[in-house]
């Protein structure tokens, strides 16, 4: 009895009508009870041939199972977990310089652009500065520094989404013998993606150039020296 208190076990202080008023149940909308759906037919009358079989027979619509398991198996519990969008750390805002801690570009300092729908962070080197292309990166493998690049008014093109970074489906597994032994041809980086990189980086580079030494900073790799402890460093 949440809105009530007990005078004695199982005896509430407020009466039923008093409780009704206190809980504001008069505000509750009363839905008319839904008309019961017409009960599904469980049997079907079918006509059958044959002289001695009678003219029709009443048969069940769904037959009883022919097999029952010997032991009663327990049904698995319902999963009530709901997937929620990944929370972005409050220290990470568009323009923040991040330090990548893992992956191909570990140690590199990159500029954060936006969070994608899948929860990953969209970052760029910029490419000209440190060789990091526009890329997705996981928040957990990143240190957010307090340095921010002023990206006010930068509209990241909507084409940069999770689908843009999807790997092309792997083609023919069973290649020919000749193809197997052929020296791998240099994979050409698609020209349209290179153009995308250029247009995206243009605005970022302009903003980076405003702060002295910032381009050098982004080009440098992060490392710890003797006496530096990450839990004591201020980033």
């Amino acid at each position, binding site marked *: 009895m949440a809105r009530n208190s007990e005078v004695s076990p199982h005896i509430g202080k407020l009466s039923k009508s008093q409780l009704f008023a206190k809980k504001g149940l008069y505000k509750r909308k009363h839905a008319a009870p839904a008309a019961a759906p017409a009960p599904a037919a469980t049997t079907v009358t079918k006509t059958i041939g044959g002289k001695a079989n009678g003219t029709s027979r009443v048969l069940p619509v769904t037959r009883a199972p022919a097999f029952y398991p010997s032991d009663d198996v327990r049904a698995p519990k319902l999963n009530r977990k709901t997937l929620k969008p990944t929370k972005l750390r409050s220290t990470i805002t568009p323009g923040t*310089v991040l*330090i990548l801690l893992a992956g191909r570009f570990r140690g590199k*300092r990159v500029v954060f652009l936006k969070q994608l729908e899948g929860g990953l962070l969209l970052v760029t080197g910029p490419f000209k500065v440190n060789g990091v292309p526009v890329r997705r990166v996981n928040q957990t493998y990143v240190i957010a*520094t*307090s*340095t921010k690049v002023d990206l006010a008014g930068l509209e990241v093109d909507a084409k940069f989404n999770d689908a843009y970074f999807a790997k092309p489906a792997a083609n023919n597994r069973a290649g020919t013998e000749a193809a197997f032994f052929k020296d791998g041809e240099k994979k050409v980086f698609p020209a349209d993606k290179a153009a995308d990189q250029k247009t995206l980086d243009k605005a970022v580079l302009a903003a980076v150039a405003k702060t002295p*030494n*910032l381009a*050098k*900073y982004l080009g*440098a790799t*992060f490392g710890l020296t003797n006496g530096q402890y990450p839990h*004591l*460093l*201020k*980033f």
Partner: protein
Amino acid sequence: MSAPQSSESTFKRYVEVGRVVLISDGPCAGKLATIVEIIDHNRALIDGPLTGVPRQSFAYRRLVLTPFVLTKLTRAASTPIVKKVFEASDVLAKWEKSAWAQRRAAMEKRRSTSDFERFEIMLLKKQRRRVVQLAGAKAKKSA
């Protein structure tokens, strides 16, 4: 209790009324205060009206004695009196000028540098090193 006159005494700073102390821990850590009264062998009554330290009993182990003393301060003086004497003695200005206080400030600054600031410091150190090495090499050559 005035400082003993003994010449063999290895102690230079004494716990006495008027001794300016630096608080080492707690919410007032890093602030200056004055010993107003000695309570017992463990605690003293301290007060720092100009530095934002409320009048309270404080354990000696949580204090560090500074070389400054407010000689004009009487035992168990009230907060307004302490304030007057503190201001007149100009201890705060002397403290800020001291190497001790400046070293503390420098360490605080160093500990609070951001990653970018550390990078800029590294660039400046390299510049300075270059200038020094060039001058040194030149001097060596001409010597």
